[in-house]
């Protein structure tokens, strides 16, 4: 589904990603772990098409086509979704109206008619129940004055509504208490199918107790230096990142 080949990216002239290779297939859950500043969030932004980052080398292939030159909305139309670490507050637009606009723009790009209001309401009801979101919450301005937990739940609610092929969850557990993590991860788990894939970006192992990854990759200084199964995350939890750094140095 997603193939990243030798990806290099800069921000303000400084190289952050230094040759990333990653392949994600339908039905898989991947986790990218790494210390602060290793380039995790940059990778998420570059896949989503954030124009603040300049891709200097390499390709991002999504479902057999190169998406490196596409704008963020075009990537969304293809089925890529990014759950933000810090969702942006947009006063004056309600959650419901935003989601409706978003879904209908995606449908328009796919040459589909706007979703009938009745279906939309039904879907909103279903998905908000899945994420235990209060109806009142849906008429509030997007993210404005939301708690950290509400913002993250709202991100996953949008994901549930948009039904992406590839969902990138950037530090979705940060700022969440244990109950909120449970609600959010239950939501993510229920949305999993054989056709879609999830890429989790996380600093801590904690979230991976709830959303079990098939693959774990360690990102250090802009490169994936180690990949493994879910047990790798456990090992990182116990031993930190330093032993990997040492392994790296030893192998040089």
């Amino acid at each position: 589904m997603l193939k990243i080949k030798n990806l290099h990216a800069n921000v303000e002239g400084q190289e952050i990603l230094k040759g990333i290779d990653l392949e994600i297939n339908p039905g898989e859950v991947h986790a990218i772990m790494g210390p602060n500043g290793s380039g995790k969030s940059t990778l998420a932004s570059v896949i989503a098409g954030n124009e603040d980052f300049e891709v200097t080398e390499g390709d991002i292939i999504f479902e057999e086509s190169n998406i490196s030159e596409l704008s963020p909305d075009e990537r969304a139309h293809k089925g890529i979704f990014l759950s933000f670490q810090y969702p942006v507050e947009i006063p004056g637009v309600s959650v419901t109206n935003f989601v409706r606009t978003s879904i209908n723009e995606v449908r328009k790009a796919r040459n589909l008619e706007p979703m009938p209001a009745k279906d939309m309401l039904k879907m909103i009801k279903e998905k908000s129940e899945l994420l235990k979101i209060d109806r009142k919450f849906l008429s509030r301005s997007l993210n404005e004055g939301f708690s950290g937990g509400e913002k993250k739940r709202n991100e996953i609610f949008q994901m549930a509504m948009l039904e992406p092929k590839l969902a990138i969850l950037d530090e979705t557990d940060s700022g969440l208490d244990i109950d909120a993590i449970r609600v959010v991860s239950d939501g993510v788990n229920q949305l999993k199918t054989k056709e879609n894939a999830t890429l989790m970006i996380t600093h801590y192992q904690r979230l991976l107790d709830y959303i079990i990854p098939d693959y774990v990759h360690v990102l250090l200084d802009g490169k994936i230096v180690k990949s493994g199964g879910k047990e790798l995350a456990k090992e990182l939890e116990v031993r930190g990142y330093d032993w990997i750094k040492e392994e790296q140095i030893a192998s040089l």
Partner: protein
Amino acid sequence: MTLKDKLISSYLLFEENVDLESDIHKQRDEAIKFFVETGFPTKKEEAWKYTSLKPILKEDYNFFPKKEDALDYKDVKKYFIHDIDTYTIVFVDGIFSSQLSNTTHERIDACLMSSALNKDKYKPVIDKYFNKAVPKDGMVSLNTAFTREGAYIRIPKNITAEKPIQILNFSTGNQEALMVQPRNLIILEEGAETEIIERHQSLTENPVLTNVVTEVFVEKNAHLDYYKIQNDHTSASLIDNTFIKQDRDSSASVQTFSFGGKLTRNNLNFYQHGENINSILKGVTIIEGKQHVDHNTLVHHQEPNCESHQDYKGIFSGKSVGVFNGKILVDKVAQKTNAFQSNNNILIDDTATCNSKPQLEIFADDVKCSHGCTIGQMDEEALYYLQTRGIPYKEARALLMFAFANKVLSSVRIPEIKKRITKQIALKIGVELGFDA
């Protein structure tokens, strides 16, 4: 002959049709004298630094339209908030139109200034209120000198007007160019409540200049919501002078929606004469082309424990010009004042201009006052966020502009007005709303 000279000489003509012996006429005489001395404001005055009247003063205006023009309701219906029941006071070229109006004297007075000025039974009210809320000012004096007609609204003690009151001023353009000077007097007695909607609408492309003065008295524990809808032809200019005097425990809001017109100047002044008063001033301006909208506000806090909230938002494209000059004056005795002011502007094109000037003069030492003004472009981070949700750049921009302006509408309490203004904003910005905002 300059417009000033023309006005002065036409004053003699005007005098032929009014009662020269009345007290009111003494005030007219004083006012014309003052105008002769001061004339029109110029850019040399601090308060008019960014707004020049020159382009609109050069027209050869007619002041006294000869005949009343009968309008068909169906032709002007769209300018009314017609989907709800209201009292309406309608003027056509400055002359009352009984056929288009729905006035009342039951429970409340929603009728004509000319009756109030001329009938004996109103004399005590006129003596008490008329010309009492206004300062000495050239434009106000000019209006006072030619005071003859306008809306007169009085809500007696503890009465809540059961429906909103609309004041509509139409200009037909039967005359080549027309200058009108409506004079409104609005009194909310103790504990009274009402909602007022005011609109000035030109019906042709002929130049129109409206210099309107509205005096408002909001007495103890009374509550007023006042909506001004400014969406006139680009041949029409408006100088709106509104003065609101509030007594203790009262609240008053004025919300101004400026989408049209050639030059619009809003002089909006609040005077707080008691404790525990709340004053709210809000505005949305969306203009393009060579349009010019100037909000010049004053809130004078004269007693302790009062609040004022100002929130003005503007979106400017083309070569349009926006001005915001907001003055907050807190007297020494006005301790525990909470005064907030915010003015946010978005410039769509490099050719658009915006001047924002907060002016805080605070003489009390235990107050909370804040002001903030921004002039900028779109929030790039928000645009990116919307794009990642599949909303293309252009649509995302429109949506953000809409959200920016729409934020001010949260306090509009009449749903029909809110709906209409929302629609108007969407139309101006070019968003196709797939929803009722």
